[in-house]
């Protein structure tokens, strides 16, 4: 059972990552990103990577650190603002970019994990997103066909995991992590709390252990805040 548990992020990635691979990385902005696994990707030195991730991190954090080392060849994302280096490399033609609407991205990943090669959605009908895609009318409404996504490796962050690989996410740090966990040949999870199998209520698990091949307990995830907004306490 504990064959899934690896001592650290570097060990969890060892022997798995190769130049030219497609990876998924969970998170929305910097919330729920597998930051230490991304650092391990940097240390691996693997090049020409395609990353499927809602965002591209910010300068110096998240996937931003792989832009610094020019390890990313292509991004499939819904929003890449907040990152000057990204804009620079993209404008210089050094980086490919495939924009996918956020909901379509989430669904393409879910589909890939669930054995669905293609589905129809009304998102993007009549826009640039629809160009080159099959359009079809169902019950009088227009839809476009979108394809499932499946990766070589998925990197996810969870709040809690057990030695069987079952995962529980916390609040809005869940976001893209569950679908990505299901949509790769090798899913690696970093978890803030690692417990023996049997400690998490089986009705509360968000990702069943079958999807997680390797798991790492991390005690030093950065968990940065991008937009710290607050209100004042009454005096």
């Amino acid at each position, binding site marked *: 059972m504990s064959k899934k548990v690896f001592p650290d992020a570097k060990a969890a990635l060892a022997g798995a990552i190769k130049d030219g691979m497609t990876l998924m990385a969970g998170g*929305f*902005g*910097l*919330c*729920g990103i597998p930051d230490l696994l991304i650092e391990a990707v940097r240390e691996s030195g693997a090049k020409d990577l395609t990353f499927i991730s*809602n965002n591209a991190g910010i300068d110096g954090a998240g996937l931003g650190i792989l832009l610094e080392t020019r390890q990313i060849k292509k991004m499939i*994302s*819904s*929003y*890449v*603002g907040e990152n000057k280096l990204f*804009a620079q490399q993209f*404008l210089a033609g050094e980086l490919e970019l495939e*924009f996918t*609407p*956020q*909901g*379509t*991205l*989430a*669904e393409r*990943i*879910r589909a890939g994990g669930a054995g669905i090669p293609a589905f129809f*959605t*009304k*998102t*993007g*009908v*009549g*826009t*640039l*997103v629809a160009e080159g895609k099959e359009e079809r009318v169902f019950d009088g409404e227009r839809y476009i066909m979108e394809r499932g996504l499946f990766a070589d490796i998925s990197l996810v962050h969870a*709040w809690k995991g057990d030695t069987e690989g079952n995962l529980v*996410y*916390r*609040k*809005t*740090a*869940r*976001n*893209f*992590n*569950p*679908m990505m966990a299901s949509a790769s040949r090798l899913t690696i999870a970093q978890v803030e709390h690692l417990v023996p199998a049997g400690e998490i209520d089986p009705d509360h698990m*968000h990702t069943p252990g079958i999807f997680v091949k390797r798991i790492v307990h991390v005690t030093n995830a950065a*968990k*940065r*805040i*991008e*937009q*710290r*907004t*607050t*209100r*004042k*306490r009454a005096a």
Partner: protein
Amino acid sequence: MPWTREQIAARAAKELKDGYYVNLGIGIPTLVSNYIPAGVSVQLQSENGMLGMGPFPYEGDEDPDLINAGKQTITELPTTSYFSSADSFGMIRGGHIDLSILGAMQVAQNGDLANWMIPGKVVKGMGGAMDLVAGVKKVVVVMEHVAKNKDGSESAKLLKACDLPLTGAGVVDMVITDLGVFSIDENGGGMSLIELAEGVTLEEITSKTEAAFKVAL
């Protein structure tokens, strides 16, 4: 007097009905939550995976695991539920959200909306905007009536046809600007002016609107 940003938000808040599930965009739409009418209970959806979004946290209570779609720290409520991005956009695409209020660069008289890219400028991405306008039952745009250009001139934003790349085709149901309120018929019936801001004349709003519209005040 044209409406202020706050007054636009207050007018938009009148579209909220008791029991509604609502998604608010960034900017003026965010202000709408300050004007929810008395006796009306709505739940705010954040497309990154949350229903029942609460206000900003008190200083020191910020939680990096609890943010809205604008990446701002927020809080939860007794009604809150969390879910994945796939489930969140299933909810949006499936028509379960009653109302979406968002900003725009351009709106056309047929309901076309452009708010995600300007060719030639750095493209940041559409995020969840295309999903929201395609899936949500009622889409309300709040925006300044005209764009102010760098040279001091003004350009119409309510157009016969958008010239910027679309976010959605025929998706807008209502537009609230600083000058008034327009409804757009989803069955191709065109745009109608249904309200004027106090002190704004029909002449003024007509002169600042390129789109054709019926007057139904």
